[in-house]
């Protein structure tokens, strides 16, 4: 047996690990992410002369089942045409059974990184976009099952993209799965599982959420599935109501809070009224002088 230098071992390791895209339209540039089943690379699409992201089945899991799962993931995502869901361009298979799919390359940061230097109003707007994308998927019969801040990208121009649909199911009896901390205690695999994860995600956006927003997060991440929003759309609607400053279904405001909400909502009208009253008082006092 011949001796191999450390450099030779390093080169052979790269050769064995890197997907072999020779003979395809893609040239791999660098690894940009790694999940349970696949590795994501930044690549160049030579035919269209544009950068793409390519998810390739991990060397360690090239079983027929995993390959089929990866193909299905590509098909599921490709079927979800939504501005907040990354578009899939191509799917194929490399020598050795490594299935891959090419998608739009998203340049940006994950939600957890984004949350570190953005205020709550901005984060709530991002969260609403996420809820809308998930609601769209639910309407198409697809459950993501692995929603977490690390699987949401905020693009360079503020676009929001829900990523990594590797555990997504279209309701055909998938096993329970996901990321600990974001999985519902009732081990649900339907839309309420995503609602739960969204609730946990919302909680993670701020150390101290406003009372109404915290109530929305708590309802979404309720222990019992029956206490949660039934769909991501209902959750999106409540968040939308929060943003608009109207009553939310998850929280019963008292009179003072209702008055405060009304004032918040009608700030311009209140300002005009106050200005009018002040002006009248001044005129009144001037006449009485």
């Amino acid at each position: 047996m011949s001796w191999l230098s450390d450099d030779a071992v390093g080169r052979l390791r790269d050769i064995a690990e890197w997907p072999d895209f020779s003979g395809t339209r893609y040239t791999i540039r660098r690894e940009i992410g790694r999940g349970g089943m696949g590795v994501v690379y930044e690549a160049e699409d030579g035919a269209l002369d544009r950068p793409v992201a390519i998810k390739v089945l991990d060397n360690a899991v090239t079983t027929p089942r995993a390959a089929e799962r990866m193909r299905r993931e590509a098909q599921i995502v490709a079927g979800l045409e939504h501005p907040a869901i990354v578009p899939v361009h191509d799917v194929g298979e490399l020598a050795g059974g490594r299935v891959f799919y090419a998608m739009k390359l998203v340049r940006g940061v994950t939600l957890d990184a984004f949350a570190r230097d953005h205020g709550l109003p901005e984060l709530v707007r991002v969260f609403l976009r996420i809820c809308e994308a998930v609601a769209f998927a639910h309407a198409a019969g697809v459950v993501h099952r692995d929603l977490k801040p690390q699987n949401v990208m905020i693009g360079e121009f503020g676009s929001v993209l829900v990523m990594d649909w590797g555990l997504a199911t279209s309701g055909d009896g998938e096993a329970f799965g996901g990321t600990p901390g974001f999985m519902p205690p009732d081990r649900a695999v339907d839309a309420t599982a995503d609602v739960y994860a969204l609730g946990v995600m919302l909680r993670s956006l701020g150390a101290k959420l406003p009372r109404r927003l915290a109530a929305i997060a708590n309802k979404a991440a309720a222990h019992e599935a029956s206490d949660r929003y039934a769909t991501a759309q209902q959750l999106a609607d409540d968040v939308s109501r929060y943003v608009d400053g109207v009553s939310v279904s998850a929280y019963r405001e008292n009179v003072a809070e209702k008055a405060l909400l009304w004032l918040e909502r009608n700030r311009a009208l209140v300002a005009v009224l106050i200005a009018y009253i002040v002006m009248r008082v001044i005129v009144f006092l001037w006449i009485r002088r």
Partner: protein
Amino acid sequence: MNSARFPTTRSSIIDALSGDASARERAFGTVIELYWKPLYKSLRFKGTVSAEDAEDLTQSFFVAALEKTTLTSFDPAKASFRTFIRMLFDRHVANEWKSRTRLKRGGGATALDFDAAEQELSRDATASLDPEQYFEREWARSVFAAAVDRLRAWADAHQKQTQFAIFTTYDIDGDASYKSIAAQHGITEATVTNYLAAARRQFRAILLDLLGEVTASDREYRAEVRALLGKDAL
């Protein structure tokens, strides 16, 4: 070597070691091929055993493993095969050392090149490695080297010697350009690209098959692939 679409990892090492004589011999041969050098070198790396004693202990370990069929007691639920064989070896060394019994050398069917292993010891960069890390690194080197040997055998059997020569020059020696290789073999650079891609493809399949041969389950196979190729591999 199997070059099917998916690596044939599912033929368990346990089944092979407890199977018929030829399957057992093949499996045992692979175990020796992948593990004798990491075990011997890591024993020497610790610096407590002379070269001669380390040779005796390594030889006697494999002879005992073959005769007593201790490898078949491997339980994949408890540890990986790699961990198991290392633990068996450590135990063997401790027992033999304690009894000071010197076993006859050369009892195994496979000739092990201890002189080469000694030369490698002096070449290996070992700074900042502990014995555990050293073993892991040498195990990886051993697996890659075995895969290269199998690639050479495949190339000889299929008249692909030029592919193997290009693979050796470019990927193992790492000191040539496509242009110089093309000139050396009297072929175009495009042909160099194609030959290299074909050899690499074959190398990948061989490597994964090799790991499949010494693991007992899909889970262990995946863990071993990650240990060998993952980002945190030494």
